[in-house]
């Protein structure tokens, strides 16, 4: 096949070079019809287009191109005009990105963290923008729940654990109750077992909040005296009316009770912020390395001379709330007469020598950091 096309090409070349059709067809008789058709085709070649027509076409072509170019320019101008604001747009984008990052990071912040203020500011804005009363209440409840989680997380971070004591409910004002002479904050999440009312005896389990306040995790009313109907505000009614025994407890009952359960007299509490009968809550300790379980139950050794008044124990300084220090799960009152050695800090292991008051609370005589 390729040979036949090459032969045709050779025959056509001969024709172009001046050979007559007869000469070529004599040489290539099989190509005679094809060569005759080629001759006819060449003979029918039309003249070249007129210069006028070509110029007219060229002019119309270029004019149309110019019109299309002009129609493109506005877009280019829009693009270039938009580029002028590119720095502003980039700055806004960066600010939005930073704000988004701050928002995300602030959500996990706790009181005292650098971004905690951002979190609270966002909440204030959220609250301010919520005008519907029902929704506003929901927002407030959400925020209260957040505070609770924050305080618990903070207590875990500090390793302060929980502290528990028994005492009489002296006051129930709003969200702050006074039990055994110790003010304690009540949250909606606080588990209240039994009908809480003034003068009722209760066992409190609490942890230390970021501002030194004690936040109740659980209040179990253990007095069997029927009480009319106390209605402390800020506490869910349904939790207060629960029977004391069947409610599951989130915190196990502390088994070791180093001290006899002496109930402080509510009206005659000698120390204003006194804590009553601290008992350790070993299961809630978040940092077992700092507060190891085996060493968390040091049986207070009583000195021979002050067998009934003075006890000593060793443990981790878990929190300092004003004049109340929590050492190994027990609250002890620090006064001006307390001898403090070694500049103990939260987390340090200390040795305590304390005097038990008549109401069961402890007043520290000596606190020394163990090196």
């Amino acid at each position, binding site marked *: 096949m390729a040979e036949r096309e090459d032969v045709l090409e050779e025959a056509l070349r001969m024709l172009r070079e001046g050979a007559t059709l007869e000469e070529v067809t004599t040489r290539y008789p099989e190509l005679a019809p094809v060569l005759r058709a080629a001759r006819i085709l060449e003979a029918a070649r039309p003249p070249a287009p007129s210069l006028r027509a070509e110029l007219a076409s*060229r002019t119309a072509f270029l004019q149309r191109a110019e019109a299309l170019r002009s129609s493109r320019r506005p877009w280019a101008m829009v693009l270039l005009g938009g580029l002028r604001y590119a720095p502003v747009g980039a700055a806004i984008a960066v600010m939005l990105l930073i704000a988004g990052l701050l928002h995300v990071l602030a959500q996990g912040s706790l009181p005292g963290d650098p971004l905690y203020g951002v979190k609270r500011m966002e909440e204030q804005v959220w609250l301010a923008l919520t005008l519907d009363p029902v929704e506003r209440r929901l927002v407030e409840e959400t925020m209260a729940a957040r505070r609770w989680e924050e305080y618990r997380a903070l207590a875990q971070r500090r390793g302060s654990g929980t502290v528990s004591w028994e005492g009489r409910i002296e006051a129930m004002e709003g969200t702050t109750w006074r039990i055994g002479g110790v003010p304690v904050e009540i949250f909606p999440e606080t588990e209240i077992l039994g009908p809480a009312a003034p003068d009722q005896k209760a066992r409190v389990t609490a942890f230390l909040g970021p501002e030194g306040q004690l936040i109740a995790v659980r209040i179990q009313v253990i007095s069997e005296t029927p009480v009319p109907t106390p209605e402390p505000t800020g506490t869910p009614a349904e939790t207060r009316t629960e029977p004391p025994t069947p409610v599951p407890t989130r915190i196990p009952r502390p088994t070791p009770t180093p001290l006899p359960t002496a109930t402080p007299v509510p009206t005659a509490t000698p120390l204003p912020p006194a804590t009553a009968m601290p008992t350790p809550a070993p299961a809630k300790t978040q940092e077992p390395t700092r507060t190891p379980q085996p060493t968390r139950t040091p049986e207070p050794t009583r000195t021979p001379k002050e067998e009934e008044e003075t006890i000593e124990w060793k443990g981790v300084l878990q929190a300092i709330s004003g004049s109340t220090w929590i050492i190994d799960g027990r609250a002890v009152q620090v006064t001006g007469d307390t001898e403090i050695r070694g500049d103990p800090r939260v987390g340090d292991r200390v040795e305590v020598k304390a005097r038990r008051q008549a109401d069961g609370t402890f007043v520290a005589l000596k606190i020394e950091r163990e090196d």
Partner: protein
Amino acid sequence: MGGVFLSERIRWGRSTVETFLERSGTVTDEQALLARARSLDPEALSELHERYYRMVYFYVLGRVGERAVAEDVTAEVFLRLLEAFHRGRGPDRHLAAWLFRTADHLVAEHHRAHYRHPEVPLEEDWGGSKAAEEEGDVVTRERVREALNHLTPDQRAVILMRFWMDLPLARIAQELGKSVGAVKLLQHRALAALAKRLKDMRNDDGGA
């Protein structure tokens, strides 16, 4: 014959083809030219029009047979090219093939419009005034045009570029994006089909 063919190829290769490609541009040049034309660069568009106008004109004239119509259709082909460039379309290589396809569409549109609204052309053929032409030539050209319309677009493009535009095989292959061998084959088949069609027409006309 083989020696003659070989010397012919050498001659084409060293003189005609290379000279023609240098003058008309290589494939790379065509792509560069099209890239500039795509951005509606006036210089590139002007060069493009100059390079392809006659090619399109002959192709269209071979189909419509009327010079005025061929000029109008050819001008319209280039305007379509501009529109395609403006919309971000159009070819980025083998421009001649694209132009011929567009010309085919426009000729088909012309035939449809002509069928609906018949017009009496001022010029009957592409050779000039009828009075100045011999009757036999007019009949021959009309037969050729009719025979051309029965070829495939590729066959028509190849033989018009070869016999009316005097383009070498290599340039035809470059413009249509085909190999030289494929162009040779198309040329052979086109001439064979043309010969058969012309013979049939002569027989129909009583051996005229």
